[in-house]
Structures are given as structure tokens and as C-alpha cells.
């Protein structure tokens, strides 16, 4: 194959490009810059969640919880434990900051991945709505635990985080996330995620360990959410538990559904679209010439999500970039599955 390393070259090009753009981003209005960074963070979150929800077919509603773990671990480490590193490397210079930031991001990701491992275990026994409820509960537990931890500010939030996040870091992480998910799915090994989604009994029958794939999906998805959380914390320099609530999880899920479950390009696109839309609606809610009802709706994110989802289900249920493989010809054996493995009459 002539183009076998094309994915790696694209990844490298994306990282270099984001480095170059980042280097010349000084002139950009800081408000726009912040939005562009949020877009990158949301791409990372949504593409990571898509591995769990879209490709592996496990409905997780607790992605903000993973993000919170990453954000708090990274923020705590970089704020409270950076002094030693800086002393050893001669003060906060380019090299020491880079090293510190990479290591706190990875630490945040690993902490979230460990949580993903814990959440992955119930996913082995639960399906669909039940798993959604468990992951939802998990996300809330994380939030409440943080709210009651004084070391990270409790409900007041955690402030004084250094502003390390740049365009370069954000988009490098987004590019790596996309690379990991895309190249994973494009391999005989990675197709196992899709077979687990399609039919667990048949997957087991051909020797695919559904357990392993589900846990892997949760761990990887959580890892990227944790890194995204670290980027978020070092971008806003202030985090508080209510920023990682249920609504945040829903936001990421909406991105995945909007883009089309199991389509990385679609999900990344939806992340861009939804982030921009929500920012734009901030202005709309301030336009005095609009009727008050529209301004009120625009100010309320939850109503917007609902409207987006209702419109999507009516017009394009498979998502913007998704495919509907089942249209037309019925598929033998793919009828509604019973609770017990209904293998035959």
C-alpha cells in the first residue's frame, strides 16, 4: 500500500499546523481565542465519547464526570506541586512549563482512565437505559465528592490555576484523539468494538471478548475526557463543580448524536457547530428587538438541546454524518433482542 502511513503524516501535520497557528495567535481577540480553544476541547470530549457511545454501543451519560476528574487532578498538581519542578529546572521557563503541563495533563487523563475502569465494570452487566442511569449517577457522585473536598475549594471552586492552555495544546490533543479513534477502528482489532455494538452474543461466538472491548472503550474515552478536563482547567484558570454537572454530559452526548453515532468526522463537526451555536445564542438572548420568548429560549441551553434533538430525530435520525445501514432490506436475526440471549425458539 502506497499510503499506509498517511494517517500518521496527517497527525503530524495537524500538530505542526496547530503549533504554527498557535505561535501567531497573539493578535486574535482573546474572546475568540477562548471559543476556538473550547471547540478543540469539545472535539476531544465528543470524539472520545463517540468511542464509547457510538462505536461500542454503550450508552454513557457521565462524561462530564471523567472530565471533572481530569480537570481537578491536573489543576491540583500544577498549582500545588509545581514548585519543586520549577526549582529543579531553574524557574518557570518554557522547558519546565512544557514538561509540567504535559505531565499534569497525562496525570489527569490517567486518573480519569482509572475511573473509567471502575465505570466500565458495571457496563459488563448493564445495557441501554440501565447503564445510562449508572453512568449518570457516577457523574453526579464525582461532582458531589468534589463539592465536599475542601482541598480543591469545595463548592467555591478552584481558582488560581495557571493559564497554560494554548491553541497548540488543545488542537494537538484533539488531533491525537481523532487519530487514536480513527486508526483503532480501522484495524481488525478495532472492528471488535463494532461487533460488540452490533451483537454481543455473536461476538462472543467468534471469540471476541466483549468484556475486554467494553472496558477498553471506557478507559480510552475517559482518558481523553480527563486530558480535555486538564486543558479546560488551564484555559479558564478557574473551575467549579457545577461546571461539570449533568448538563455538561448531555451537551457532549448531544454532540455525538448530532454528528452521527459512530462517525468521527460527524462528531467533530457537531462539536464545532454546537459550541459556536451556543456562543452565538448568548448574543441572541441580548438582542432587545427580539420577542422576549425567543430571548428566553436562547438563554436556556437545555431548551436548545431539546429542540436540536427533536429536529434531528424528525429530519435525520442517523445524525448529520451517520448512515442508516438497516434501511430497506430487513436483516435476519437483527430483530429486537430479548433480555436473555434468545438464541433460538
Amino acid at each position, binding site marked *: 500500500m502506497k499510503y499506509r502511513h498517511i494517517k500518521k503524516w496527517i497527525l503530524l501535520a495537524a500538530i505542526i499546523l496547530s503549533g504554527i497557528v498557535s505561535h501567531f495567535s497573539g493578535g486574535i481577540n482573546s474572546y475568540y481565542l477562548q471559543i476556538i480553544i473550547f471547540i478543540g476541547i469539545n472535539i476531544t470530549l465528543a470524539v472520545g465519547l463517540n468511542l464509547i457511545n457510538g462505536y461500542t454501543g454503550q450508552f454513557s451519560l457521565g462524561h462530564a464526570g471523567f472530565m471533572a476528574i481530569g480537570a481537578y487532578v491536573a489543576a491540583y498538581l500544577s498549582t500545588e506541586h509545581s514548585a519543586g519542578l520549577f526549582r529543579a529546572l531553574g524557574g518557570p521557563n518554557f522547558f519546565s512549563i512544557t514538561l509540567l503541563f504535559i505531565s499534569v495533563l497525562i496525570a489527569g487523563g490517567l486518573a480519569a482512565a482509572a475511573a473509567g475502569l471502575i465505570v466500565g465494570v458495571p457496563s459488563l452487566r448493564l445495557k441501554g437505559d440501565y447503564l445510562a442511569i449508572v453512568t449518570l449517577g457516577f457523574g453526579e457522585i464525582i461532582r458531589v465528592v468534589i463539592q465536599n473536598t475542601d482541598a480543591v475549594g469545595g463548592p467555591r471552586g478552584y481558582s488560581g490555576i495557571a493559564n497554560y492552555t494554548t491553541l497548540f495544546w488543545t488542537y494537538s490533543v484533539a488531533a491525537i484523539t481523532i487519530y487514536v479513534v480513527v486508526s483503532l477502528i480501522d484495524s481488525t*482489532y478495532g472492528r471488535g468494538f463494532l461487533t460488540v455494538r452490533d451483537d454481543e452474543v455473536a461476538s462472543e461466538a467468534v471469540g471476541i*471478548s466483549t468484556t475486554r472491548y467494553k472496558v477498553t472503550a471506557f478507559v480510552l474515552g475517559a482518558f481523553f475526557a480527563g486530558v480535555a478536563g486538564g486543558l479546560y482547567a488551564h484555559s479558564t484558570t478557574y473551575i467549579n463543580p457545577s461546571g461539570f454537572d449533568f448538563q455538561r454530559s448531555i451537551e457532549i452526548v448531544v454532540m455525538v448524536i448530532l454528528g452521527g453515532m459512530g462517525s468521527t468526522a460527524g462528531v467533530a463537526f457537531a462539536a464545532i457547530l454546537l459550541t459556536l451555536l451556543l456562543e452565538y445564542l448568548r448574543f441572541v438572548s441580548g438582542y432587545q428587538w427580539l420577542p422576549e420568548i425567543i430571548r428566553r429560549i436562547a438563554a436556556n441551553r437545555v431548551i436548545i438541546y431539546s429542540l436540536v434533538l427533536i429536529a434531528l430525530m424528525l429530519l435525520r435520525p442517523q445524525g448529520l454524518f451517520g448512515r442508516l445501514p438497516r434501511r430497506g432490506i430487513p436483516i435476519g436475526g437483527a430483530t429486537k433482542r430479548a433480555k436473555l440471549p434468545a438464541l433460538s425458539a
Partner: protein
Amino acid sequence: MPSPLLDLRQCTIRFGGLTAVSAFDLQIGADELIGLIGPNGAGKTTIFNVVTGVYRPTSGTIIFENKPIAGLRPNTIARRGVARTFQNIRLFPTLTVFDNVRAGFNLRLRHGLAHALWRMGTFYREENEVARQVDELLEIFDLGKFRDALCGSLSYGDQRRLEIVRALATRPKLLLLDEPAAGMNPREKEISDRRPTGRARHESSHGNLSARNRTGLWNQNRGGNPGASAGESEGHRSISGRRNEESVRSTCFGFS
């Protein structure tokens, strides 16, 4: 016969108060082709589910290649060399024909997560080798022309065949076909007689997929299920009345 490939001893499965299979014995040697017939509800599929690990037997032992496999996870049993098809076809509906067969190669992969991400020479060598073998299997079973179609777009008979190809892709030592000819017309059955080279060639001299060289007819529902006796004897009669090719419900292949 030296020690059999598969050896079921006194296998009993109860679901609550219902005894689905009671004290069932079955020996399958290498190179044997065995048909399993019985009336509806006799427990043929339940036997398959027990052998492949979907259900755990209430009592009794299952020995495969001299090792007990009762209670192992289905994927572990598949790795040991037991492949199966399902009575109601279970393909991966969102995947292409090619990917469905490729799923059967998953258990023999030498690459994993890290290789799929690193994507260096060994990864591509293995992927190419897998692709070559998948295409070869598809050609043998006349499915090559559907390679990149979604498996849902295939006809019923082709889907059945695809499921058999997927099972063969795991290179089983024992292949369990649950009602392989159900719902197929004679033309489709004929196409199904084509078989892969190598391992399974031995079978072709003995008969085709729907034939048998030893048919086990057994009576189930001995006790435990009141009201079954009437239906049972009736079913028994009707089965004995047509003990021909059509009546073979499920087939077990023992590969050498």
C-alpha cells in the same frame, strides 16, 4: 475411537423448574459429521448453547480435547476451537460482508491496541494476510461479489452462508451448525455444499452440509415437564417418519 474431540457426559440443564436437557451424552470424534435431530423443544439448540458456553450446565461435564470447558466464557470456548452458527442468523448488521468474516480472525490476531495505533510493518503484514484469507474464504463460498456490501443486503441464503464462513474463519476444530438449511430452498442448499479447502475437505467425501453419517435421535423431556409426553411421542413419530436429509436439524462437524 481414541478419546473423542467433544465429550458430553450426563449433561443436564434446568431453567428454574423446567428441565430442558436431561442427562445427555454425546461423543464427537475428529473427522466425524454428526446430525442432531429431534422434535421442536427437544433441546437441540440448548445443547449447542451449553457446548459454546452461553449456558452453564446444571450438572454433568463437557470435555473438549481432553479439557473441561463447562462454565468457561463463550469467547474462551471459541478460542479453544468451537465455532457455531445461529438458528436465527446473527450477523453484524452494520458491518460489511468483508468485516463480518474479518471478525472471525479477531481471536488469532497477534496485534492489539498498541499495534493498531503504532501501525508499523508487522501490523500491515498481518492486516494484509487477514484480508487475503478473508477474500479467499469469500471466493470459495461464492460471496466475493458481495465483499463490500452491508451484510443486511444479502439474500437469506447468502446470509446463512456468510455466517458459516464467519464461523470457519475462526478455524474451528468443531463446527456447530444450528439448523443450517432452515429456510433455504434446494438451489441455495446446493450452493452451500461448496466447502473450504484444507481442513474441511475430508468432509466432502462423506457428504454435504445437510447430510449425515451418524444421526443422533434422542428423546427429551423425560419427566419434569408435564403434558410433554403426548407431544413428544407425536414428535417422535413424525421424525422417525421422515428420517431423511430434510429432517437433519442441526449439524456438528468434527474437524481433524
